[in-house]
């Protein structure tokens, strides 16, 4: 038995070298940059860090980022659940097209995604004149930022739920239907308990991307300080002004969010891996 295992396993030295090479690569590409965010943020001490993140523009950016996430995450959550319900609990022509469409935002460059809204709502855009006449601002204002965030985070919840709900089938819902339960109750009492961890997983990824999106938001925000700068945009502005300490201070808050996201994600994968879609990320 052990001889057999030896024959299909590497020598200790080979294993050690491969493990060290993997750690070195991840260390070089991922860990060093992450560590540098925090060392740069605290290079001038805690007081400087606190001053940088409580400065009015920084606070406005934090508030805007939280607001945008608070609007866009629930919208994509509800619509993602609706899409997953229609796709997995029903049959209709064009279903595969719908699934492919949901995937499209993942493959579009964020800059292109943000720019498309500029062509719709910008001054030269389709609705530009009409919006101007009615004094509604979408481009270079908060609604545009929300739209850009919505498109880049569109797939996460649906992509997580569709394979999960497909693998769970429809028997339980159909049994509830036979017992006379109305639709919304079937969803709340039968479906939701089965998908809650997968849903949380999708919402977690949606939120991380919503708070961190840069390219799409950058194109449509107009970079108005204290007004349309989200945290990632504020990082860019400060960095380009060579105010590195403040840039890294704001960046470290976002890096902290990323770490919390990773921890919760890993916990979900350990504890509820069976209730997550097999399709990883």
């Amino acid at each position, binding site marked *: 038995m052990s001889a057999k295992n030896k024959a*299909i396993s590497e020598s200790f030295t080979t294993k050690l070298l491969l493990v060290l090479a993997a750690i070195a690569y991840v260390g070089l590409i991922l860990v060093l940059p992450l560590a*540098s965010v925090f060392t740069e943020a605290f290079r001038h001490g805690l007081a400087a860090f606190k001053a940088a993140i409580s400065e009015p523009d920084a606070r406005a950016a934090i508030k805007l980022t939280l607001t945008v996430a608070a609007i866009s995450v629930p919208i994509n959550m509800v619509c993602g659940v609706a899409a997953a319900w229609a796709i997995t609990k029903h049959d209709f022509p064009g279903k595969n097209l719908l699934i492919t469409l949901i995937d499209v935002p993942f493959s579009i460059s964020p800059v292109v995604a943000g720019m498309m809204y500029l062509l719709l709502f910008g001054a030269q855009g389709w609705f530009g004149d009409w919006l101007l006449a009615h004094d509604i601002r979408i481009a270079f204002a908060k609604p545009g930022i929300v739209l850009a965030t919505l*498109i880049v985070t569109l797939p996460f919840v649906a992509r997580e739920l569709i394979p999960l709900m497909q693998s769970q089938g429809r028997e339980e819902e159909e049994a509830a239907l036979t017992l006379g339960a109305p639709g919304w109750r079937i969803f709340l009492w039968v479906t939701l308990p089965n998908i809650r961890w997968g849903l949380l997983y999708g919402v977690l990824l949606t939120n991380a991307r919503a708070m961190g999106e840069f390219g799409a938001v950058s194109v449509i925000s107009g970079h108005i300080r204290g007004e349309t700068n989200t945290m990632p945009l504020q990082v860019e502005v400060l960095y380009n002004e060579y105010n590195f300490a403040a840039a890294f201070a704001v960046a470290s808050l976002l890096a902290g969010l990323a770490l919390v*996201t*990773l921890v919760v994600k890993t916990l979900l994968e350990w504890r509820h891996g069976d209730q997550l879609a097999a399709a990883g*990320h």
Partner: protein
Amino acid sequence: MATISLPRPRHGRGRRHSPLPGLPLTLTVTILWLTVLLLLPLIALFAKSVTLGPAHFIDAAFSRRALASYELSFGAALVAAAVNAVFGLLVAWVLVRYRFPGRRLLGALVDLPFALPTAVAGIALTAVYASSGWVGKPASVFGLQLAYNPIGVVIALTFIGLPFVVRTVEPVLADLGRGLEEAAATLGAGRWTIFRRVILPEIFPSVVTGFALAFARGVGEYGSVIFIAGNMPFKSEIAPLLIVTKLEEYDYAGATAIATVLLLASLLLLLLINAWQGYVLRRRSA
């Protein structure tokens, strides 16, 4: 194993209609959602590029500066995806096959690029790889400049692409039975031969998928690249940045033409990747 199965008049091609409620509502919401957020903007982009007229479109989309930016975006994405195909496979292999202290931490860290905002990644990579940084300084002793040139672009795209390869290869590697390896070992094959002739053919399709996903992501990447790239036209200017520059100059026509080229390339890649995954699935189940 004989099991008595209940009659299941479901999950077949013959099924006509699901008895469950909610289709009209959920389908309406889904279609509205995709129309407003995705289809309408896509139509606006294509319509705008059509109104440019073919001559103007080609001028703007394939100017020398635009061509240089495509070359950099696609070339750097290709190199970075290739690097990640090798090292991503290594990381996936180590995570699946070996037990060592810190394995779970390593596994969790791989997802960092999915969670870390790209602008943060961009300034962090610049801090590390610029000539004053932890890696850039020792490298500059050997005359190697890692930032503010195309190498910087490759480094940023390597950061962004790693999880795509690892997360695609990992499940396939974990599902791989050891039977064939044992058989090959019994026949006297060494470990390297077994890896090359038995394991690699099994996992290679997933490496290709991961490579393609990383490549597709890299082509459109913006936030993590612009800080480390240097952004010199013709030298270190990626295509998404050129779009942003055109927009800032209010050259919407020029931006639209380049954006359309990028968009068509990414839609083509999406279709190719979907087709490839379908082919791999069919081959595995056959």
